[in-house]
């Protein structure tokens, strides 16, 4: 894109600056729009599984429901509790929202469409997603109220626990692909099993890790059935209890942007990203971004499906799953996959 702006007569520096800013806008604006639509899709899927109608009043089929909700929230009064730590109370939703958007900088949307193609892309995503916990923890502490505080304690422990297994799961993919760059990871999946499928997830060696990653992603985004941070029967609304108006909306947008990010990561790391599912020439006629969006939506559907079917975990069960099942399993899998890669690259040692 820099070349395009250079052709308009700008110097390289200005062209780079304008190209980066417009790149950010090209990603963020559709992302926010899709967050609004995905909330609608979430409610519709949930309603359909419960044999309800879901939102159907605002606009055709209720399509504009999220925008109506957004407008309502926008017009509300921002209430700051008198005993709250004012500065941190207002910073917390901003952190959640910013962090949720920042991670999208390295997501490759097609072969060429990636804002920042850095060679530590996966580490960047890990770094950014580990920041997500601060918005929750700070909001819980700054609210100076007991339910948000309990919620932020739960969130901190939960996110740290599941980041460990997510980290090991990612290591298996990195070992397989031999790179931390997300575009290269996608290209390494091309024609994976006997030149047929473009997905690591269908490799029997990596399929268990794909499942572990999907479940850990649900826990990491505090999504059902792991939404103990906002368990309404115990904690009112968790860390969001004292928030209103736009500060509440920022939490809400950030949460769904994070969920979309996790779905995108699932698609990129295990199911071939913008590659078509099968390595067959006519399928490449469809633009890569369509495949990526389709895959993201399939994973989002799984998230909604789980939300509508599975009851909430108990906290000790959550910790047990993270530390006693996923951690040893993924750790063992790192050893197995490194052994496989060793044999694949260097031949059988005996």
């Amino acid at each position: 894109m820099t070349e395009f702006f250079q052709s308009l007569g700008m110097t390289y520096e200005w062209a780079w600056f304008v190209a980066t800013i417009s790149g950010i806008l090209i990603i963020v604006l559709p992302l926010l729009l899709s967050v609004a639509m995905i909330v609608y899709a979430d409610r519709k899927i949930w309603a359909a599984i419960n044999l309800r109608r879901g939102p159907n009043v605002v606009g055709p089929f209720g399509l504009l429901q999220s925008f109506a909700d957004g407008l309502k929230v926008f017009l509300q009064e921002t209430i700051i509790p008198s005993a709250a730590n004012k500065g941190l109370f207002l910073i917390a939703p901003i952190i959640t929202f910013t962090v949720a958007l920042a991670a999208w900088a390295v997501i490759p949307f097609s072969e060429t469409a990636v804002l920042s193609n850095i060679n530590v892309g996966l580490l960047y995503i890990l770094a950014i997603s580990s920041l997500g916990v601060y918005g929750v923890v700070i909001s819980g502490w700054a609210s100076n109220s007991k339910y948000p505080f309990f919620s932020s304690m739960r969130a901190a422990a939960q996110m740290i626990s599941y980041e460990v297994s997510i980290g090991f799961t990612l290591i298996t993919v990195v070992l397989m692909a031999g790179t931390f760059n997300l575009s290269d990871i996608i290209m390494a999946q091309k024609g994976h099993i006997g030149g047929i499928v473009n997905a690591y997830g269908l490799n029997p060696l990596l399929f268990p890790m794909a499942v572990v990653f999907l479940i850990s992603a649900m826990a990491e985004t505090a999504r059902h059935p792991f939404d103990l941070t906002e368990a309404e029967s115990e904690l009112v609304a968790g860390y969001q209890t004292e928030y209103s108006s736009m500060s509440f909306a920022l939490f809400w947008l950030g949460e769904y942007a994070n969920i979309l990010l996790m779905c995108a990561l699932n698609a990129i790391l295990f199911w071939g990203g913008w590659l078509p599912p099968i390595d067959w020439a006519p399928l490449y006629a469809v633009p890569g971004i369509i495949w990526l969006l389709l895959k993201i939506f399939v994973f989002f559907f799984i998230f909604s499906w789980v939300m509508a079917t599975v009851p909430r975990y108990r906290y000790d069960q959550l910790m047990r799953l993270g530390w006693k099942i996923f951690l040893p399993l993924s750790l063992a899998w790192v050893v197995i996959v490194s052994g496989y890669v060793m044999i694949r690259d260097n031949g059988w040692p005996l």
Partner: protein
Amino acid sequence: MIQVFTFYLFAVLLIASGAFTIFSRNPVHSVLWLILAFFNAAGLMVLVGAEFIAMLLVIVYVGAVAVLFLFVVMMLDIDFAELRAGFMKNVPLGILLAIVFVMELIFGIGAYQAGKIELADTPVNPAREGATNIEAVGELLYTKYIFLFETAGIILLVAMVGAIVLTNRKRAGVRPQNVSEQVARRPEDATRNMQPEVGKGVEL
């Protein structure tokens, strides 16, 4: 130009947030300033081209260590008056520590300016030409110095096991969850399907 500007931006913010870490009255604010300091340090690392170290700094320190700090500090009930009362008592120790650190800095810089000592016959070549950060670190840690690295890992593992053994105590009167029993439980064991006649009720 932009590099110099960015360097001074990160450096000034790093020192400022480091200072605020010490001067903040509220320990939670201290931890948050510390996190900002980590961030700026990571920014400086990116600036010198060590993007792998920068990401590790954020993942390990900001993502794990500082969260645990915050976790502990948030739960403290701190009496600030009491903290300040203990200040004068510890001043001599603080001054002593400060002098030691300043001396070390002076010696370190002085020794660096006086020239370096040769420790090995052959100079250690850190990395192969043209390797990316990750490849260079991987080759050094996991190929060249694998045994030293694994020794360090085993020492840490022993320390971890020791810490767990020392803090793990059996408490009486606790009823832990029996997971296999919970998983093995079936609806037939817990419920009965009753079809009582009208007006008779059921006996439980």
